[in-house]
């Protein structure tokens, strides 16, 4: 039968291919991106953010960074609330990626202040020791094309205002990129919800422990110095030489971060390490 009739074989092969295609590729359109998975607070990208997203695509950032947090304990601890379908309805194309050479970025928005991103994009290794990310300082030299961006917004059918478009004339690609990164994953108020409430009294387990101070110093150098300076003199973040804060308050701030002040939460590194940092900062404060 079909072993002698190529056209029949072609048609039967097409039918075989179409069964799985219809079930797993076409049927999902009936439920995905509908009322069923809609999230009210999710908004389209602004012109500046959308342009940043297109630069992210142009530079192939998705080759090293994923944008989806899986509902797994270690992953939620590391990156934040797991990703939900309704958060991606304005993503054309999707940018979930397939490989984490660098960290996941789905919850990056609001984690750092803008200034951190400008410095980090400019030269990643000054902010993160050992990073293998290429320098992207050169995108600062490229100005934006407001007309083109307006056309993009029309194509995507996203709302925009004339002011938003005219404001683009004085922006460069770096501004757009940072605006996009700050939007990532921030449409749902997960950061406040994820904060830990500390119940009961906090007792410093390492008071006066030289080893803890030393370990804290090392942690500081890697995780804090890029923003607060090598000598706690402050840079992107405030100076820390004159803290005048008790151990418990300091612990709380390091553990939870300051969600509207751009200080990331460091609770996921563990309470021992947070206490080591507290002891280091207090010892520096005393000097």
């Amino acid at each position, binding site marked *: 039968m079909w*072993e*002698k009739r*190529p*056209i029949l*074989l*072609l048609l039967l*092969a*097409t039918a*075989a*291919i*179409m*069964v*799985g*295609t219809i*079930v*797993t*590729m076409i049927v*999902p*359109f009936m439920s*995905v*991106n509908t009322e069923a998975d809609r999230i009210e607070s999710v908004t389209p990208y602004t012109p500046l953010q959308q342009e940043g997203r297109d630069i992210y*695509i*142009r530079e*192939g950032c998705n*080759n090293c960074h*994923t944008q989806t947090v*899986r*509902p797994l*304990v*270690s*992953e939620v601890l590391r990156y934040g609330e797991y990703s939900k*379908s309704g*958060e*991606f*309805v*304005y993503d054309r*194309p*999707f940018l*979930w990626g*397939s*490989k*984490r050479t*660098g960290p*996941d970025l789905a919850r990056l928005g609001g984690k750092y202040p803008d200034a951190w991103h400008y410095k980090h994009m400019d030269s990643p290794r000054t902010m*993160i020791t*050992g*990073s*293998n990310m*290429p*320098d*992207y300082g050169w995108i600062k030299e490229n100005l934006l094309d407001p007309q*083109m961006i307006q056309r993009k917004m029309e*194509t*995507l059918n996203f709302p925009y205002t004339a002011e938003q478009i005219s404001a683009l004339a004085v922006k460069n690609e770096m501004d757009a990129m940072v605006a996009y990164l700050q939007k990532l994953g921030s449409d749902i108020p997960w950061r406040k919800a994820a904060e830990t409430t500390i119940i009961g009294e906090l007792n410093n387990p390492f008071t006066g422990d030289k080893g803890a101070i030393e370990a804290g110093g090392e942690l500081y150098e*890697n995780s804090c110095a890029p923003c607060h300076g090598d000598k706690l003199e402050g840079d992107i973040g405030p100076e820390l030489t004159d803290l005048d804060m008790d151990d418990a308050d300091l612990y709380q701030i390091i553990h939870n971060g300051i969600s509207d002040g751009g200080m990331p939460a460091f609770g996921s*590194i*563990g*309470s*021992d*390490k947070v206490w080591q940092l507290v002891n280091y900062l207090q010892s520096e404060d005393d000097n």
Partner: protein
Amino acid sequence: MEKPQYNTDIVKSFVHSSVLWGLVTVLVGLVVSVQLTNPELNFPPYFTYGRLRPLHTNAGFFGWVVGFIFATFYYIVQRLCKVRLWSDKLATFQLWFFNATIVATAITLLLGYTTSKEYHEMEWPIDLMIIILWVTFAVNIVMTIIKRKEEQMYISLWYMLAAIVGVAILFLVNSAAVPVSLFKSYSAFAGTNDANVQWWFGHNAVAMLLTAPPLAMFYYFLPKSTGVPIYSHKISIISFWSMIFMYLWTGAHHLLWTPVPDWIQTLAMAFSVMLIAPSWGSVINGYMSMKGQWHQMRENYLVKFLILGITFYGLQTLQGPMQAIRSFSAFIHYTDWVPAHIHMGTMGWVSMIGFASIYYLVPRIYGKELYSIPLANVHFWLALTGQLVWSISLWIAGVLQAGMWTAMNPDGSLTYTFMETMVEMYPYWWARTAGGALFFFGILVFIYNLFKTVRNGEKTAPLTAIAQGRA
């Protein structure tokens, strides 16, 4: 019956093109692997990792693999049908258009014109070129099969036909986009839908370009090289229908634990495990065809490439389903394990079959003896060790990184920061570069050997003698 005059010129030209793009693929692969360990080797704007990596994958997929698919299929289809190619002119047009498309792809990717969709990054004008290319190819193959002088179709032709229609469907759907300008478009699908369509495409591009066509080649060149028929044509028929039916359900195993609906993930997981059966149907068919012929593994370099190739296909189709299981995917996905898996498939299976096919073709289409069988053996060992070093080092790296990502302290906090896990990768990334370099030297030996064969290889005995395995 009078012997038909086959078109061999078109086979020659496609061999040249595919080998050239194969060299480019591996060269760019080496560059991007070094960029991961030495970020100062990124030269913006055109030569950064983010722009070069898609060039590496697309040159491999569409330049090297599709190139030798065109070459081998045009050789095979004429012989299995015992007629000359339907249209020489169309094939010649296809050759030039093919190279133009690959060049256009390379240039636009370096310029940053990309859709970001993996293995399909080229923008819409190039998608149109690829569609034209595939239609010309499909018409020529199908018309040649229709006017064949042989009643029954050998299994290789089945796989060809399935690949032709499969690639067409996948590519058309995944290309759907709304253009903004000549070099920028937005996907027709958004978010979770786009992800689901993309990996339905991504995984089945593996089926229709990296599995079905190499199987067509394997089923043709293995019996041709050993001189004995395949073990069972019936097993190949059962495997064929099961494989092309089941593959299409499995795309979402690339999206386990993501917002894609759970039931799609579960189906993908189940069908991925079921796919072991048809995959191993082909593997066992290959092994059984060697019954009484295993001594040829020592004597016949072509058999070595082919049998190692099908062995890696077997390993790949066990490892793949394993990764498609939720619990294992939770651990291993997004780590360096995954590129190690892909490269066992591309370097160990697809390229091995590609090398064997081209070693088989070149002496026959040029009527010259292969310049050096010892050099072909050197190539074999360089390719094999290169691939093993590449994959094994990154499997270790992947398990290490996955372990560090998921390690937790007794108080429920994470043991390692992301950077602590990343810097652990550097030694393995160096080992990967070394493996890639070995593979690259293998390619150089391959090209040298082919070049010398064409230039000053000895004229062979009449072609009929080769066909009967006497020369």
